[in-house]
């Protein structure tokens, strides 16, 4: 196959992007998928450090890029820093199947350049408000897969989750939406199955 698949993970700050990556790394460690991660923080390596502490992936497979500017600039306008980091990982780990690229977190308009990624997820969360899918932000509409995280919080924040999900599905006109609870790991297997089908092109061993 042709190099590692590059998958972007965008969405507002705090929606659960790093939490989703932590859950995916658990699953990939279990099934032996060769993966690496690039994090984009504004001016720190927080997320990368957190993933390294998680211990699911060798620390050298986690690179941190510091955006130093609005996070969307390094995933869309000028993704060269991230592209260089991904190239470096591919050179260093020839068997790599997958590189996850976490955005520093941005507003609902943030999108990924297809020069950088083959496929991208946008993660929003229930606590961010059930009106988010209605606002038709480019991130929500254009991503390849919309993840609505923190379903566990719906009763606590007074969100009618089935209605929020239906709104998101209607806004996306049939493109995939998956609900997740990264606290408990719900929905993560579905996300991975999607990635396997749409970009990794690998079936899970039975």
């Amino acid at each position, binding site marked *: *196959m*042709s*190099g590692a*698949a590059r998958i972007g993970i965008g969405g507002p700050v705090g929606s659960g992007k790093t939490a989703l990556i932590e859950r995916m790394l658990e699953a990939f460690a279990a099934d032996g998928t060769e993966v690496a991660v690039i994090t984009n923080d504004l001016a720190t390596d927080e997320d990368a450090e957190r993933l390294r502490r998680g211990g699911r992936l060798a620390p050298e497979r986690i690179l941190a890029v510091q955006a130093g500017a609005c996070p969307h600039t390094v995933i*869309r306008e000028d993704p060269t820093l991230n592209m260089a980091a991904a*190239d470096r990982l591919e050179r260093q780990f020839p068997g790599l199947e997958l590189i996850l690229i976490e955005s520093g977190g941005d507003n609902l308009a943030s*999108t990924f*350049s*297809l*020069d950088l990624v*083959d*496929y991208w997820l946008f993660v929003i969360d229930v606590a961010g408000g059930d009106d988010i899918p209605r606002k038709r932000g*480019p991130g929500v*509409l*254009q991503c390849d897969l919309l993840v609505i995280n923190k379903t566990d919080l719906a009763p606590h924040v007074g969100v009618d989750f089935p209605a929020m999900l239906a709104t998101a599905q209607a806004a996306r006109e049939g493109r995939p939406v998956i609900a997740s609870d990264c606290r408990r790991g719900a929905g993560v297997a579905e996300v991975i199955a999607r990635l396997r*089908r*749409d*970009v990794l*092109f690998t*079936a899970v061993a039975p």
Partner: protein
Amino acid sequence: MTGRASEPLLLTGILGHARDAGLHERLHAMEHRGEVEVIAIPAAEAARRRLRALTDRGRDCAIALDRPARLSDGAVLHLSEGLAIVARIDSGPRLRLRPASVEAALRLGHCCGNLHWKVNFAGDVLEVVLDGPREACLERLRDVAAYAPFEVLGDGA
């Protein structure tokens, strides 16, 4: 690759171009025998290196290209006895705008850039490559029209 029907046909490289001298005749002959299938890809998606797509005959394909490769209209992705698969990049609908003045053109161009729209410049016409409904695009320009007047032209793509 196994030949199981449930698995997509994996396409990992661009073998040539339908217009290439060597390929053109061969593809032409295959076309007459009904052996050429087309994968239609919208222009906005053509930058992808990996995608899952169906051919016009419903064959499930998984495209995974090397990073330097780039899909272009007519790219030949598969060529074997009895089957060729060719990419067709659909240039897609455009919204054609003619700014009323140089000042309007500067302001309109600046605005489209801020919106991250894909545009082409065709003389004094700005072509917005639509990634959604035409009305939605015009709606976004509603306020801009007050200080950067423009004329909306017919499709003429």
